[in-house]
């Protein structure tokens, strides 16, 4: 299997779907001539032309709405936000229009489109450019929300998202674009809503998604040397959420830590813990703990930023606590 970057895996998915279906087009800031702010759309303008790889002005609300209108009448838009931080300007279109169109119209108007772009904290980008948005969109019925962690999942999920007849919020890890992994060649599809067990162990479950799945895998590898075997459940999709996979793991390990990039209050972890208490109440040997960003806006200074973010050290501390090893 070829080893490719997360970025190239996404580009492969875009190229293959653009080739497969001529109603698919990509629209966003700097996607065409500039080859993409993060180079995910590199080379696509040359291959598909300006009608299908469309540069937009800086007008998130406007082009999100354009995508929705095009989807209503049968095209399959991929709307790229340069980052999800800027997509807040378009959230009315995503939440009030795209998510509800099928329902409000009594099933008449499908919304086959993808909103995609980089999500989550990066390095020293401070308060407005370093945020994880998944819990905001996962709250909304009508949306699907993908958070791939690996190149293979990025490719397979993006292809599923583009083919899906529902609006899919596709959150790429801003810090993941250069990460590498094996990606099956050609047609590779990952179904939306199915978690993957990234590491198998029976001492403690770590339920996670997106960039934090990489942290969890590293922690699992490190702790394995000490004889602690983690079950790492990478949700991959946070709406719909694979409750069965969560329950299966926790029923096996009887302990869980939920690891995410976002903030604590109403974060994805709150929902996962709710599923665990509902499905696994009698299986638990310890309270479930959560690891997340500190409850502060992201600071700029290196030391403060490090302290604000969830990381391997915090995850290990939580794991040891639920295993009564601390």
């Amino acid at each position, binding site marked *: 299997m070829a080893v490719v970057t997360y970025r190239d895996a996404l580009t492969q998915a875009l190229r293959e779907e653009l080739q497969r*279906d001529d109603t698919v*087009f990509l629209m966003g800031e700097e996607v065409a001539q500039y080859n993409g702010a993060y180079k995910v759309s590199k080379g696509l303008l040359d291959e598909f032309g300006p*009608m299908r790889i469309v540069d*937009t*002005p800086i*007008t998130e*609300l*406007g*082009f*999100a*709405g*354009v*995508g*929705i*209108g*095009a*989807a*209503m*009448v*049968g*095209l*399959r*838009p991929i709307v790229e936000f340069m980052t999800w931080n800027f997509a807040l300007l378009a959230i*009315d*279109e995503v939440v*009030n*229009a795209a998510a509800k*169109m*099928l*329902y*409000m*119209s*009594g*099933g*008449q*108007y*499908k*919304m*086959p489109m993808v909103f995609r772009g980089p999500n989550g904290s990066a390095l020293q980008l401070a308060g407005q450019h370093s945020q994880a948005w998944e819990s905001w969109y996962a709250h909304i*019925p*009508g949306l*699907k929300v993908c958070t791939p962690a690996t190149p293979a999942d990025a490719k397979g999920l993006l292809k*599923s998202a*583009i*083919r*899906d*007849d*529902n609006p899919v919020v596709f959150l790429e890890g801003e810090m993941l674009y250069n990460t590498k992994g094996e990606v099956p060649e050609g047609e590779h599809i990952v179904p939306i809503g199915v978690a993957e067990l990234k590491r198998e162990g029976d001492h403690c479950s770590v339920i996670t998604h997106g960039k934090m799945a990489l942290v969890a895998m590293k922690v699992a590898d490190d702790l394995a040397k000490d004889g602690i075997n983690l079950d790492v459940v990478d949700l991959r999709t946070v709406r719909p959420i694979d409750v069965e996979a969560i329950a299966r793991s926790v029923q096996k390990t009887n302990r869980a830590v939920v690891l995410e990039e976002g903030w604590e209050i109403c974060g994805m972890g709150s929902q996962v813990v709710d599923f665990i208490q509902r499905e696994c109440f009698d299986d638990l040997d310890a309270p479930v703990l959560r690891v997340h960003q500190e409850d502060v806006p992201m600071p700029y200074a290196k030391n403060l930023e490090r302290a604000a973010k969830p990381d391997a050290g915090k995850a290990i501390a939580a794991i040891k606590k639920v295993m009564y090893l601390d």
Partner: protein
Amino acid sequence: MSTEAKRQPAQKRKEKGTPSDNGADAAGGNDLTGTTPELRRELLHSMLLQRRFEERCAEAYALGKIGGFCHLYIGQEAISTGVMSMIRPDDYVITAYRDHGQALARGISPRAVMAELFGRETGCSGGKGGSMHIFDAKTNFLGGHGIVGGHVPIAAGVGFAIKYRRGNQLCVCFFGEAAVNIGAFHEALNLASLWDLPVIFIVENNRYGMGTSISRSTANEDMLIRAKGYRMEGESVDGQDVFAVRECLARAIERARKEKRPTLIEMKTYRFMGHSMSDAASGTYRTKDELEENMKRDPILVLHNKMYESGELTEGEMRKIDDEAKAIAQDAWDFADASPEPPLEKLYTDVYSDSSS
């Protein structure tokens, strides 16, 4: 009306004050050319149907048969009728929440619209949308949208799709004058002009965004300066005169189909009812005198008078058309009232589509 009067620069035609300043002679005159007597009767019928239908809506609302927000279009019917009479069945229409009149003028079944308002399974949106979310795929009626200005970029997207497919349809997008102060409107106009999209943006300037007059909300009341700001053609027209509406649409349609260019049209109008069924027609924000003055230019009366004066319509015929409109409204009511509520399992359908490409 002379050709010259029609082609005056927009600035000269722009006037302050009420649409009633914009007398029949100045805007539409008695020029009935370009329409046949049959078409004129259809226009009258369309407007009367909206009027009688919505009068019944008000009644049903008072009886609790219609709930939620319910924004009536009464007073503005020449716009919906004029516009819909000019566009093709394969064109697209998208609008805001004051949408019943446009839905009827577009040809959606009055039964399906009333049933939607009653929250019944037989409604055009299956009872899931209500007054503000009338959708009908059969007539390319893309909703009924409840967030002021939010649907204007969606209209640009429909225009984009038409261009993408090299079609020669167009999209008509209705919104009120209060929407011109919201960012979505400006972003959409910029994109439509930048990308040469076949969209006709129609500002129905009824002079009040809910209870706030345009003079209290809008620094520059010249709607057309917004078109100019985006290198777009703009026109301002007497929205109480269905012929003036049609003439203006003809130019915008030509521009959309031949030049693939958008147009911004200001339709000067007045709403005879409150903003929604929850408030009074006059009161804190506008006087009864002002309301009554504007009601003299009831769009139905304007058309009726022209047809009456030309001798093609007798009072008896007028009554016949009106009775027919009332009968359709009654039939819609009866149908809606007899229709079942959506079955409870429909609560969970249409959240997601099961299909994929």
